[in-house]
């Protein structure tokens, strides 16, 4: 009995602590964003770190996913003579789900881990304390630039991912499925709607926070030692991936509902 009860209880306590801690952190971030000075230089540095340096990863994964999707849809639908729907299917799935989702998951792995381990080691080496001791705020100096950078960068990366993914689909369409590239292109343009795009685009703002806030939270809550930095890094990636995946379902529902309304 205790073999199950104790870890379960520990897990529940940890989850509640995490949710509470994340709420408090978000509150501090919000309050300090709207008051006092903003460190634009730090934000732009983070945009470079988070955004520009993630570019190759995002472009390569999106391209491959687009190619695979086009191939699978194409081969699957060929039997029913539905090959012509490949551009529409790939475009709609990519804009609504795959682009924002994969970009966010890749960023959670690359950037979330980076943020958590960097902040964690700053805690261990007392650099966070030093920021406070020198009369400055770690929220402003460390957390806000990372949160802001993710918020700015993720929608842009997701948009690029959409473009590259569909381009990957087009290439496979032309080479493997015998679809004329200009037909494929026109088909995307004709069928993909702004609504598809916006529903995916809207999610990225939530996903950005699902990446940066847990990463900062776990980093800041490292108490001592290199081992905890490792644990914090793992937790950051796992938790933000879960939040993205679960959040995606609910956000998709919400966006469908909004679309019905307008």
């Amino acid at each position: 009995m205790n073999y199950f009860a104790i870890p379960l209880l520990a897990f529940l306590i940890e989850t509640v602590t995490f949710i509470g801690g994340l709420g408090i952190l978000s509150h501090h971030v919000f309050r300090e964003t709207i008051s006092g000075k903003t460190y634009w230089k730090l934000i732009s540095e983070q945009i470079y770190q988070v955004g520009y340096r993630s570019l190759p990863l995002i472009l390569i994964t999106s391209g491959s996913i687009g190619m695979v999707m086009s191939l699978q849809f194409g081969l699957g639908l060929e039997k029913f003579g539905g090959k012509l729907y490949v551009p529409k299917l790939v475009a709609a799935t990519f804009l609504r789900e795959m682009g924002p989702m994969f970009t966010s998951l890749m960023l959670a792995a690359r950037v979330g881990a980076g943020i958590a381990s960097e902040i964690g080691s700053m805690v261990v080496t007392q650099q966070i304390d030093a920021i406070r001791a020198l009369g400055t705020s770690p929220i402003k100096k460390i957390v806000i630039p990372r949160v802001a950078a993710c918020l700015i960068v993720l929608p842009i990366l997701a948009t690029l991912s959409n473009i590259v993914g569909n381009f990957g689909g087009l290439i496979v369409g032309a080479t493997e499925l015998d679809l004329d590239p200009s037909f494929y292109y026109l088909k995307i343009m004709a069928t993909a709607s702004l609504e598809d795009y916006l529903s995916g685009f809207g999610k990225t703002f939530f996903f950005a926070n699902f990446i940066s806030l847990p990463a900062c939270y776990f980093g800041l809550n490292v108490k001592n030692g290199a081992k905890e930095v490792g644990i914090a890094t793992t937790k950051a990636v796992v938790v933000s991936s879960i939040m993205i995946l679960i959040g995606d379902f609910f956000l998709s529902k919400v966006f469908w509902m909004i679309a019905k309304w307008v």
Partner: protein
Amino acid sequence: MIEVIGFKKSFGTKQVHKGVTFDVKKGECLGLIGGSGTGKSVILRSLIGLEKPDSGKIIIDGVDITKMNERELLEIRKKVAYAFQNGALFDSMTVFENLAYPLREHFHLSEKEIKDRVHDQLADFGLEGNEFVYPGNLSGGMQKRVGLVRAMMMNPQVILYDEPTAGLDPFNTKKIQDLILRLKSRGVTSILVTHDMPTANAVCDKMAMLSQGRIEAQGNMAQLNQDERGAIAKFISGEEF
């Protein structure tokens, strides 16, 4: 200037401070001694609000800082500087950027003024030529000195030194003693945590010894030097007490 009253602090089940009381007047230097792990660093950290006591008061310049929130504490930290035991330098910044950090944050200085001030301070500590070195590439003693310089950059009214001379050679130890004395003559109040008795003797006005969660003994230097049987004298000579 500084008054600590009934300071209590536990970590988990371990009670580190069971009611610590002492005070430091303006311009004075208090030497705080005590065995390793008795909580000297925790007291210094609490004096600038990095740590919150479980109960007790910490009064700085007439105000109790234990009730302050993080934003109010930022103001206290401009007045009270803490020189970390190990320097706590920002390892992603060069020595120059580390030292310029407090200046850039709290003063409106031109780039040239910042440069001049940093150079002056570095030269003062025999650290010139290391401006563009990253802290990771400095020796432990050098990191410590840079940390000390960084803490002083804002001309604080109170400086809390956490073992500033541990691990330093005699020449640099002397320099730090001179520095503490120089700041003291300018009216800076200070607390010096140290195991280094010659330095304590050279700069402190009074001493307090922390043991088992309380101030075990305290007194001014003249008293302590006469009393050869007291707890502090025993601590210094390495006897058990």
